[in-house]
């Protein structure tokens, strides 16, 4: 499994997010490659991300928010 997390430069959610992902993986006994990507607003627009953090599990976005705004 591959999990990609895109986080804006100023977002303070990284630690909490990493912790929750680790706990979920452990509970489900799933091995995953987890990528934490700190990206700029410009890049977020390019990637069409809707929020920070934006999380993709095997390429599928978790709860896509459909709202523009990455901060």
């Amino acid at each position, binding site marked *: *499994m591959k999990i990609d997390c895109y986080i804006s430069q100023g977002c303070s*959610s990284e630690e*909490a*997010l990493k912790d*929750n*992902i680790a*706990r*979920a*993986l452990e*509970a*489900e*006994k*799933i091995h*995953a490659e987890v990528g934490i990507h700190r990206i700029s607003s410009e890049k977020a627009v390019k990637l069409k991300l809707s*929020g920070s*953090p934006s*999380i993709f*599990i*095997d390429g*599928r976005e*978790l*709860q896509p*928010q459909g709202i523009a705004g990455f901060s």
Partner: protein
Amino acid sequence: MFKDESGRLVNVPSVETLKKAMRESDCRASDAFDKVQSSTKSLIDQIGETVRGKLAEAKLSPSEDDARKYILTEFAKVGKPPSEEAIASAMNLLSVEAAHRLVEKLHKADILTKEDDEIISAYPFSAKATRHKVIFKDSHKVYALCATDALGIHFMLSEDITVRSRCPECENEMKIELRDGKVASCVPEGVVEFVSSREQCGCTAKTFCPYMNFFCSEAHLKQWRDKNPAYGKGEMYWLHHVLEHGKNIFGDFLK
């Protein structure tokens, strides 16, 4: 913002939300894998091709292939592999070191496996006890790496054999007698093989083989799959299919 399980908005997804998403993704991957399996080749056919493919990829010279056959023949005779000294002597090699290099080549090609510098298996045989005991007419026995390998030994050696294997669910023994390319008897009736698709990477003997087992019945297989969800994805085969696969994989393994 994310919604948690009670509908509250939170900055990061909760552990429960993540667990649910991970489970769903895992199921999608498994379903996709199962669909690929059903629309193309069976899992066991793919494993068979991998085993045979590794042999082809190794590009063994005629003398190296003779050494491979010697190792298998000795394995069949005594249930364990020959020493490097014995290989050197039987194959007229210049030194034990030459035999060591040859064994290393076979190991790297996944034609045999080693542990602590000792050969512990060579498809279809295992030097360590497994669930699958193969008994020959003269009563000597060997262990097979997996259920398919156990039946494959009959075709590889053209010898009548009896396979005694333990059901992973109830640990009771099943007895399958093979004569002249056919199942002469099977106790209990209704034995099936299950091949788990959980492990996909690495050495076949260590990844797939431990999860290619006979079960007493479909009912016992179902119970086992329910208790072992991590290994429950895979394919079930009837005995005549296993026999066919064993023949396809090992029929000309010594020719």
